[in-house]
């Protein structure tokens, strides 16, 4: 007897349909799984057999062959357990083939016959073409997000068999949990003083400009960075689904209601390996931190402590918004459109960084700053110095604007960018910039001086102009010389050098 159950498997962050074919025939009792299963998938044999027996059903003492088609695609994970179990029961005649028609099955089995939630339910369900899908209880909300399928859920294998044989009805689907209220993110109102850093955060959120914070320990770099996600507008429906898909596949906990509506904020430790950052793996290709922060914020605290390889691996994704991971097992493109925020001390002692006061040797300071390669530094449109607020600022300064006030202006800047056909001003190319916001004569003079002084490169000028456009958008003005001047001053060089000697060499 033959049975064929639709299921799906994960490849990166997308699901691929898999037909689970089960053939039961006479012969020596055996149970083989073919069709490129990985280890966790091959182990399904033992789980399925135990689950079937624990559910009070008979295990056929016959020759059982399971084929996972298409056989060229590597299958990973335990999500195919349920489909294999039902396939065996159908092929053996314990469940009628007609009852499983139009059902896609996903779920991991426990030895006691319970059905456990799986990682990546959203992309897996997305890959199923059947009108109805059966998923573990814990994955119902996620599976419903697409709205294409009738979603059924069961908690035990025995329950599913009872429903299929007609002795029990499907559980009534639980009511949709209301979407989680906005998770409390730290508010900008707590930030005292730091006018420049506040402006930079607003610009980063409004224009999608990558931000580098340079300052001594205790200046509030981390505190500032944590307030950035709150400034970003909520994800629109498509983006939310994309992000949920990635988080689901990466096994990151989803918020109540299943859908990730708020831009994610990821802050990997500086020990992170290049693979942990961009994604990869030897047999199963998993998304890395940059994909987990897709449409959100990737925060690299103590950027100088990250391995140079891990940092430089960010360059291509920063440019293209996606990362292509190629391994022997295949090549996968992960979405990685993130806002990079990094914090670094000006030097290893970090204490002051003030010229003449720093305790580090020249060599140590150069080594520290050289870790941040020039091309990577170039990607930061905003590079600002954060200094410790004075006691006066901390205790007496009036509280600044709150996150919600700033977010309204951010929203405005994003809308202005959308009218120009890009998600954020940072994505504008040089031609579009010349068309939309040509430099005023005064701004041109300013740019010429900065370029002839060697403070600005051609590429730098382009980045500075995008920032100045965002500044104008936020202020609801047309871009002028004062915006360019601000943008120039928000893009400082982290390296302290002795210009005189450098000039004499030239």
């Amino acid at each position, binding site marked *: 007897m033959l049975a064929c159950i639709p299921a799906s498997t994960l490849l990166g962050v997308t699901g691929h349909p898999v037909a689970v074919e089960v053939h039961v025939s006479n012969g020596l009792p055996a149970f083989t799984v073919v069709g490129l299963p990985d280890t966790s998938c091959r182990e399904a044999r033992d789980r399925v057999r135990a689950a079937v027996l624990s559910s009070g059903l008979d295990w056929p003492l016959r020759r059982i062959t399971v084929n996972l088609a298409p056989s060229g695609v590597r299958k990973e994970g335990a999500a195919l357990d349920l489909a294999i179990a039902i396939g065996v029961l159908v092929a053996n005649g314990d469940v009628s083939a007609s009852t499983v028609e139009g059902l896609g099955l996903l779920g991991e089995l426990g030895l006691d016959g319970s059905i456990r939630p799986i990682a990546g339910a959203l992309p897996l369900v997305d890959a199923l073409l059947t009108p109805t899908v059966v998923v573990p209880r814990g994955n119902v909300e996620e599976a419903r997000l697409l709205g294409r399928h009738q979603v059924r859920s069961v908690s035990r294998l025995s329950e599913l068999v009872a429903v299929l044989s007609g002795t029990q009805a499907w559980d009534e689907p639980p009511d949709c949990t209301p979407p989680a209220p906005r998770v409390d993110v730290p508010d900008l109102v707590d930030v005292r*003083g*730091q*006018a*420049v*850093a506040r*402006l930079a955060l607003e610009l980063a959120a409004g224009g999608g400009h990558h931000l580098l914070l*340079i300052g001594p320990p205790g200046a509030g770099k981390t505190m500032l960075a944590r307030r950035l996600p709150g400034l970003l507008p909520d994800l629109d429906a498509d983006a939310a689904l994309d992000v949920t898909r990635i988080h689901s596949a990466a096994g990151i906990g989803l918020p109540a209601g299943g859908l990730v509506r708020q831009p994610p904020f990821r802050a990997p430790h500086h020990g992170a390996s290049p693979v942990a950052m961009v994604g990869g793996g030897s047999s199963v290709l998993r998304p890395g931190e940059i994909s987990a922060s897709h449409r959100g914020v990737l925060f690299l605290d103590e950027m100088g402590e990250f391995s140079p390889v891990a940092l430089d691996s960010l360059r291509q994704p920063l440019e293209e918004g996606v990362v292509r991971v190629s391994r022997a097992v295949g090549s996968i493109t992960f979405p990685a459109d993130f806002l990079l925020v990094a914090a670094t001390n*000006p030097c290893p002692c970090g204490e002051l*960084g*003030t*010229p*003449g*006061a*720093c305790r580090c040797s*020249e060599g140590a300071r150069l080594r520290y700053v050289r870790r941040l390669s020039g091309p990577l530094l170039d990607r930061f449109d905003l*590079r*600002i*110095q*954060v*200094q410790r607020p*004075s006691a006066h*600022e901390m205790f007496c300064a009036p509280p600044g604007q709150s996150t919600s006030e700033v977010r309204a202006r951010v929203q405005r800047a994003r809308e202005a960018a959308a009218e120009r056909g890009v998600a954020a001003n940072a994505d504008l190319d040089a031609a579009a910039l010349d068309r939309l916001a040509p430099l005023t004569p005064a701004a041109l003079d*300013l740019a010429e*001086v*900065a370029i002839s*002084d060697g*403070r600005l490169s051609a590429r730098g000028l382009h980045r500075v102009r995008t920032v100045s456009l965002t500044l104008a958008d936020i202020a609801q003005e047309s871009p002028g*010389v*004062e*915006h360019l*001047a*601000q943008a*120039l*001053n*928000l893009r*400082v*060089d*982290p*390296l*302290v*050098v*002795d*210009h*005189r*000697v450098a*000039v*004499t*060499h030239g």
Partner: protein
Amino acid sequence: MEAWLCALAELAGVGPARLRALLSIGAPDEVWRRLEVGPLPRVDGVAAALVSQWRRQVSTVDVGRVWARYEERGTGVMAHGAAGYPEVLVDDPDPPAVLFLHGEPHAFRLPRVGIVGTRRCTNYGADVAFELGRGLAAAGVCVVSGLAVGIDAAAHAGAIDADLAPPVAVVGSGLDVVYPRQNRHLWHSVASRGAVVSEAPLGVAPEPWRFPARNRIIAGLSDIVVVVESKSSGGSMHTVNEAIERGVPVMAVPGPIRSPASAGTNRLLSEGCAPVCDVDDLLVMLGLDERAIARTDARPEPSPTGRRVLDAFCWQPVGLDTLVGRTGLPIPDIALTIERLLADRWIVRNGPWLERAAAG
């Protein structure tokens, strides 16, 4: 004669003091011969074990090959008291037994001013050192310094910029070991226009003890020692002590009282050392005041806002945030003013910091 001197200087464990002790026995070739054969000579203050170690080493050294290396590089060798050896060092309390030289020794006959200071200087310090170096060289004064990063490099860069009087650099390593590497261009410019000297033979690494030893030569060579910027302790203060020991006048450049980089110079001033506010102060001290040069500030007058922002610097390195806090002006105004001041060279950028620039 010089060949044996070089070979002796290159023996393992021979520093300035031991070389002097060896040469007290006799002429270099004679010392060499006595190390080679015959009874082991007794050297003042040197253990017999080390002398016998030298004997073993001497038997493996080909003096001709050693000398060929010096000739090949054009390294001048000046024994204590020989021709070319700086006269002022002959009667020094702790004179180098030999000086190696790249370049021309005639700089030693000019009036000489030692410019010293911290390696981790502020823009202010580097500015002043550059200006002093340029002004002195333009007035025909030889600038003596140590080619370290920071003040030393700025002073030499200034002297080379003026392109008049030859500068002298006294370094701690062998003349073929350029240290620090980042100053290599400067090193070669000084060697080609003036002189780079060292008491270490070729191939000697810049060991830490060689720098204080080098400082005494700078102090000994200079008619005046100027400290531009120095912390309360460090190499420059060592040079100052060596200068005081030799009766060389020490002058110091005043700095902001809150700047750690000026802590040492300000203390020198409070202890009664003469201040240097411009090149003329030095030229007057040297008795060359008639050569004082007239200088004017050619920079365009800053706008009222520009003046307000400049005042907010208090002659210290500041960030944008500090300027916003001190002036209370809105960020766009400050940003625009900063750009204008940068263009007119009233201020300069140094990494994330902004600093006021001196005239010139």
